[in-house]
């Protein structure tokens, strides 16, 4: 064997081991990532409302002024104005404060107000994470996003872990390119029959090669998003700003450090918001006021994407004079290559830059990548099936590959039921943990059973749970299909349709599968 063959052999080993060592976590991140591409749709589906009446109106400025007069002046440091639960206007007056978990976080008073009548519906005191986390209708989508972003590992460690998974995926993608000498030909590979090892390799190659550019893109942007704040900012702050992270953040964001604190009446916020919406071209989603009540106060308005734009728009106004100041860059004080690249990362990772079309493509390719991970593990384990230890690995793969979507489906059911009791924030993560524990118990109890039988049972369970999900949503007070059609509830129709289609696919595919053939058992 010559030196080049040795190098290829080493690359094949790195390709396999890089994915194998963290395969289960990688699978969790990929599957949840594929699902949370539809994050805002899941929120709309969960909310069960087609009522999207704007919360910003003629009374917005008046309401902000009214509540600003009621809070202590130190909480005028930062004011958030946005959409709250059940069509309310959310106001949050806050200032940075040391958080018990470490670091500093905005702390203050949050109000939910009827945007038309001005009647106060709810008031809370707390940190920004507690105030904005208290959205029952978002419990399911937040849970899935948290699982994808930091696997529910607390603090920065979760971001380090998902960043590491991104780099692992990147290594697997780069080595995949290097070891495949005929990538173009592999794009048109057809599976060889007989459920042999080569058949598994064909399937893995086909899914892997088609999703290769996407794998590089997603793993790179995902690793960047995980590491940028958790690791990049502290490292850059340490070296370039003498360890001062606040100064580093202010420099990176191009924020003005010295503010004119002379007390000054505020300009009419309603007029500023109206001008911003016209100027941005996209719907106003939120606004943020810095140093309310001073001559240096600024209003930042956040807007959804305008037609043809890759991402949303942010505008900045003087809150004292109402004058338009600038459209701030995502980073830096002026347009630059750095700010353009930073601004591209999120839309490219989330696939939300071209409406439904980009989301559908991202979901499809995310599904292909998820399948690549599972089929790669199948291939890895098939090559080692003579070893008893790896046979248990194959059993564990079956349980995890089917178990995770089952646990997510059970969590969605639990979310819908507990929404009736107004406590989904408490129960949604617990339902996931209990589902996982039950599936682990099932896995231990069935470790000697044939994998075909386990695959069949789990597949039928998943199909049934998915078919029942729209029924459960309707029975727990969700929007009916007729109402959704009439009132533009696209989210409800699309997600219900997807659940039904996937549920039927699971049931019909597994009913047709001969029990002796392992070829069509996705998690084998």
């Amino acid at each position: 064997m010559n030196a080049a063959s040795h190098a290829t052999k080493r690359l094949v080993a790195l390709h396999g081991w890089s994915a194998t060592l963290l395969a289960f976590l990688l699978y969790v991140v990929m599957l949840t990532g594929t699902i949370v591409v539809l994050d805002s749709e899941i929120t709309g589906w969960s909310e069960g409302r087609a009522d999207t009446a704007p919360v910003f109106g003629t009374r917005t400025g008046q309401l902000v002024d009214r509540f600003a007069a009621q809070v202590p002046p130190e909480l005028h440091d930062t004011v958030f104005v946005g959409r709250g639960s059940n069509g309310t206007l959310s106001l949050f007056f806050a200032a940075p404060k040391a958080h018990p978990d470490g670091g500093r976080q905005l702390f203050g008073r949050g109000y939910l107000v009827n945007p038309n009548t001005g009647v106060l519906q709810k008031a809370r005191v707390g940190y920004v994470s507690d105030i904005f986390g208290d959205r029952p209708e978002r419990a399911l989508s937040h849970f899935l996003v948290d699982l994808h972003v930091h696997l529910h590992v607390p603090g920065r460690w979760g971001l380090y872990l998902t960043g590491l998974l991104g780099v692992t995926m990147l290594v697997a993608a780069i080595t995949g390119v290097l070891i495949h000498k005929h990538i173009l030909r592999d794009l048109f590979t057809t599976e060889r029959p007989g459920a042999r090892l080569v058949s598994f390799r064909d399937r893995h190659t086909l899914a892997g090669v088609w999703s290769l550019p996407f794998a590089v893109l997603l793993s790179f942007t995902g690793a960047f998003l995980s590491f940028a704040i958790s690791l990049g900012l502290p490292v850059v702050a340490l070296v370039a700003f003498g360890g001062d992270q606040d100064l580093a953040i202010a420099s990176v964001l191009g924020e003005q450090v010295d503010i004119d604190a002379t007390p000054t009446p505020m300009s009419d916020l309603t007029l500023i918001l109206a001008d911003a919406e016209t100027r941005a071209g996209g719907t106003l989603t939120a606004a943020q006021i810095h140093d309310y009540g001073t001559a240096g106060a600024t209003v930042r308005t956040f807007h959804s994407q305008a037609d043809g734009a890759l991402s949303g728009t942010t505008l900045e106004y003087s809150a004292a004079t109402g004058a338009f100041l600038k459209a701030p860059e995502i980073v830096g004080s002026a347009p630059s290559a750095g700010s353009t690249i930073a601004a591209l990362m999120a839309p490219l990772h989330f696939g939300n830059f071209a409406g439904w079309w980009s989301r559908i493509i991202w979901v499809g390719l995310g599904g292909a990548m998820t399948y690549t991970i599972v089929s790669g593990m199948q291939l890895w384990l098939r090559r080692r099936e003579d070893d008893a230890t790896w046979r248990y690995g194959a059993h564990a793969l079956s349980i995890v590959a089917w178990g995770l979507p089952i646990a997510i489906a059970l969590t969605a059911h639990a979310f819908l039921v507990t929404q009736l009791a107004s406590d989904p924030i408490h129960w949604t993560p617990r339902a996931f943990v209990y589902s996982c524990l039950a599936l682990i118990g099932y896995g231990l109890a069935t470790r000697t059973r044939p994998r075909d039988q386990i695959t069949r049972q789990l597949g039928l369970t998943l199909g049934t749970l998915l078919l029942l999900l729209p029924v459960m949503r309707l029975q727990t007070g969700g929007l009916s299909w007729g109402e959704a059609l009439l009132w533009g509830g696209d989210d409800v129709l699309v997600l219900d349709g997807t659940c039904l289609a996937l549920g039927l696919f699971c049931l019909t595919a597994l009913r047709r599968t001969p029990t002796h053939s392992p070829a069509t058992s996705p998690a084998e």
Partner: protein
Amino acid sequence: MRAWLQAPKTGQIWLERRVAQHPTLWRWLLAGPLALVLALFAMAGLPNVLPAGAGGVNHLVFPVVLFPLLWASFVVWPVAAIRIGRVASVYITLFVIFLALILWAILA
């Protein structure tokens, strides 16, 4: 011992010969801990030499953006390379350069 004293025959420097004696160990070291350290040092050191650009942030953003790519590349190269000694030379040179940049920034 004699091999150590011999003059390089094919242009190999001392380090390359030393590394070539334990290639597997060096591949693990270079693709494992040293790859991470190099990527971290690059992220910390490059802001001191890259241009800031019009927005004043290019020198801060590019090293952070490049970090995952650099780390992955630093992992793959020692595994793919046939002459591991050359990779070790490059890595150690980069390590010294990045360390010097970091120390320069901290002391300045």
